């Protein structure tokens, strides 16, 4: 490969340099090396810069991709994008390097006699359509399913929904955002009646305090964290990290407070107790804008097949809520949360101080929780009681993990119960969808079918006989893959996997479809702050790679639904977006026209009269608020948000004598989710080549485990062997181990539990009981 020693030396120098830059990225969130970025860019007049969003996380940084002779040769941060103002994290900077991976899926592969045979795409799509049709004929429409992604583009999600719900007439559509954002959605809907954050990233420039709830932003939302650090340095803003593990975020924060897994519920209630007891309630705000409710308790954990639950909300009054909180005095909660009463009071005093602006941030720690909806409600309680909401620098802000968990999964609605506007259970919403889709209203079923965990259980039971996954790798990312991998291998289900690279999921496919990567197609994403971002196709993909949206349309046509999908191959992104926009017309969710999105580096919705709405529900900024109101939570019929009475309940599975450790799982800055892209980017792979199991040094010592020594971690469901990591990236509390899930060779999700929040149906990847032993 290297034809001379000196070119090999230059290569090694480059690797040395990139290693140091990647190491710096792990230590300094949002670090940028602008001079290197400029230097690495070929000095060519032919370089064509095209804008788009980053492929990876929900921060939604704007990127500029430099192309020359049809190839992507450079990536830099878009200085015109208000999200990142030119900054990128280490993943963003290196993102296009995965396209050149040698094992790229360039052609369709069809399994014949146990071997994958390269097949023309048209033939493969014929097979997919035939199989889908014949399965419906033989077993009914609920025997086929699609499982998509918070990384699908808006047009991809939209045509999947239209095919499944509008054309076929089944609600068997789910997406991997169920694994990350469902509790956030359920939290928003139960408290405000409207999904997605009320504030925006500009809150960072105004807040005095950032309180992060179970959220390692330094690694997961690095560019936002770097913006927070900038405010810390420049204005003295404070960051308080409230978590179960000491991470990069904890060490960069002003204060780190650790809690026992699951007791965040109790601590949040204790904060509310303090707010009320100290007279810090913003009485006029609460009286004018809030109701109080309670729901059912002891809901269970959904670990059994066909589990179902429906909450029964009941109105209560402020006095009842106050009495309920008597069980949550800081002193009582300190006993089991391992957070001192002093620290609880300190947190409460920040929320309670009328002169301090507070933003709460959270992501997976709160959402991937068997009481995730409750935890979202409880964070809203603190902001509602104090009236610190919907104002610059004051508000609860639920962050998303994936780049279009908001834009596609939540707004287009690629969940079983959702439609592009509203839910299938609502007749008005079904009628609107039927009208725009031009299908008979009766065709859209009014009952949701399977949420994600139940969908894969249905595959295992043999109830689902055809499944098509797009832009996702469930056999690495689902909880309890020890059950769902054998399920997907069964002959009873025909599996179609559409992806860019081979994965453990494509390994079990009957047909593999070669998908276009991010910049090889046009599309739209929607980030955490309601920002819709458009990009044009920048380069040609290799072989027969094709956008997922177009493959869905081709299958729909082959199934006889061509009249519902009258889009052209060249302009389908534009045509689909224009059709989709009709769903959200109006001041509450109006989306910017495509011409605007093409010019701007993303636009926040509601987009009203040519302007973005940065703070919803506050009449000063939001034209959808009732005239004469100051705040209007218009998602609820009476315009009032709900303060929920939600108790502490234990986790689905806690450590015991046989399985004495908590297992927590998550991500690392170098890798995106299951690593199928970032592990093919040499510098990222080299920086973090394999997963590991983190120990508290005392636990490691007690077990006689040394750093790097192989350790077997087992639960009641499965086991996994990984090298020990002691005093390196993160530090779990005693009695807890942490494992990142990016490594398909070390399948930690064989060990995790598929318990979920009964309201949101989002699994808890952060808590189950395990034992560890030397391998």
């Amino acid at each position, binding site marked *: 490969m290297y034809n001379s020693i000196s070119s090999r030396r230059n290569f090694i*120098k480059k690797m*040395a*340099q990139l290693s*140091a830059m990647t190491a*710096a990225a792990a230590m300094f969130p949002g*670090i940028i*090396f602008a001079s290197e970025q400029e230097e690495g860019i070929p000095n060519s007049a032919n370089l064509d810069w095209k804008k788009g969003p980053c492929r990876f996380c929900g921060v939604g940084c704007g990127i500029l991709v430099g192309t020359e002779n049809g190839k992507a040769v450079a990536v830099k941060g878009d200085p015109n994008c208000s999200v990142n103002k030119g900054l990128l994290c280490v993943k963003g900077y290196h993102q296009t390097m995965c396209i050149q991976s040698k094992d790229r899926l360039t052609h369709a592969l069809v399994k014949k006699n146990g071997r994958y045979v390269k097949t023309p795409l048209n033939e493969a799509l014929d097979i997919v359509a035939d199989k889908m049709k014949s399965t419906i004929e033989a077993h009914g429409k609920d025997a086929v399913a699609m499982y998509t992604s918070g990384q699908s583009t808006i047009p991809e999600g939209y045509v999947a929904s239209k095919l499944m719900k509008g054309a076929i007439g089944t609600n068997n559509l789910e997406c991997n955002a169920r694994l990350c954002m469902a509790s956030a959605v359920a939290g928003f809907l139960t408290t405000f009646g409207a999904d997605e954050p009320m504030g925006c990233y500009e809150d960072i420039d105004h807040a005095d305090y950032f309180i992060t709830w179970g959220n390692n932003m330094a690694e997961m939302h690095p560019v936002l964290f770097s913006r927070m650090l900038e405010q810390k340095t420049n204005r003295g803003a404070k960051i308080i990290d409230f978590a179960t593990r000491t991470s990069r975020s904890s060490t960069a924060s002003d204060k780190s407070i650790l809690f026992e897994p699951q007791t965040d519920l109790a601590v949040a209630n204790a904060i509310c107790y303090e707010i009320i007891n100290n007279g810090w309630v913003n009485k006029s705000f609460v009286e004018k804008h809030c109701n109080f409710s309670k729901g059912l308790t002891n809901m269970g954990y959904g670990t059994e097949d066909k589990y179902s639950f429906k909450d029964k909300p009941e109105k209560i009054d402020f006095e009842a809520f106050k009495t309920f909180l008597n069980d949550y005095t800081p002193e009582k909660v300190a006993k089991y949360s391992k957070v001192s009463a002093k620290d609880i009071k300190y947190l409460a005093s920040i929320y309670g101080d009328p002169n301090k602006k507070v933003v709460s941030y959270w992501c997976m720690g709160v959402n991937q929780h068997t009481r995730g909806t409750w935890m979202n409600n409880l964070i809203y309680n603190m902001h509602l009681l104090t009236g610190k909401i919907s104002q610059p620098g004051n508000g609860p802000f639920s962050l998303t993990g994936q780049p279009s968990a908001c834009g596609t999964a939540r707004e287009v609605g690629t969940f079983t119960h959702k439609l592009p506007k509203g839910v299938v259970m609502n007749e008005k919403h079904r009628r609107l969808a039927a009208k725009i889709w031009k299908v008979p209203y009766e065709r859209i079923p009014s009952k949701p079918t399977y949420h994600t965990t139940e969908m894969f259980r249905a595959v295992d039971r043999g109830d689902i006989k055809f499944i098509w996954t797009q832009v996702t790798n469930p056999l690495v990312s689902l909880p309890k893959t020890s059950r769902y991998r054998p399920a997907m291998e069964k002959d009873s289900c025909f599996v179609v996997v559409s992806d860019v690279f081979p994965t453990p999921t494509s390994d079990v496919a009957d047909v593999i479809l070669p998908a276009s990567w991010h910049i090889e197609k046009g599309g739209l994403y929607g980030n955490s702050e309601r920002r819709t971002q458009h990009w044009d196709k920048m380069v040609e993909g290799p072989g027969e790679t094709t956008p997922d949206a177009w493959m869905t349309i081709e299958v729909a046509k082959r199934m006889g639904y061509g009249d519902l999908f009258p889009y052209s191959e060249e302009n389908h992104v534009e045509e689909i977006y224009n059709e989709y926009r009709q769903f959200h017309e109006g001041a509450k969710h109006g989306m910017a026209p495509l011409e605007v999105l093409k010019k701007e580096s993303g636009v926040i919705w509601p987009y009203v009269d040519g302007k973005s709405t940065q703070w919803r529900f506050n009449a000063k900024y939001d034209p959808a608020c009732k005239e004469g109101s100051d705040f209007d939570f218009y998602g609820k019929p009476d315009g009032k948000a709900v303060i929920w009475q939600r108790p502490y309940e234990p986790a689905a599975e806690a450590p015991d004598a046989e399985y004495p450790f908590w297992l927590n799982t998550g991500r690392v800055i170098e890798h995106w989710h299951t690593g199928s892209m970032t592990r093919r980017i040499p510098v990222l792979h080299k920086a973090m080549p394999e997963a590991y199991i983190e120990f508290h040094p005392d636990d490691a010592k007690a077990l006689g485990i040394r750093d790097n020594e192989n350790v077997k971690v087992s639960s009641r469901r499965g086991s996994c062997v990984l090298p020990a990591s002691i005093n390196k990236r993160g530090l779990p509390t005693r009695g807890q181990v942490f494992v990142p899930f990016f490594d398909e060779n070390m399948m930690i999700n064989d060990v995790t539990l598929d318990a979920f929040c009964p309201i949101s149906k989002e699994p808890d990847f952060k808590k189950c009981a395990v034992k560890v032993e030397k391998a």
Partner: protein
Amino acid sequence: MPIKSYLAHPKKGEKQALINALSELNGCEVIPATNQDVVVLVTETLDDASDVILKEKIEHINSLKLLALVSGFNTPQN
């Protein structure tokens, strides 16, 4: 020929002084971070002895707070 990369952390307010001092040394390539107080340093020397000497020189720079080795390679001479 040893090639090594480091993260060089300057003393408070002395990032530019550190960049200048490192840039003056033969065998040092400096890539400063734009928005953080840290500098990526890549060193390339003829042999292990010169590597040790260069490292000593670097460690004597006044504006340097901490030098952390990230990677080290040894390539054949051409």
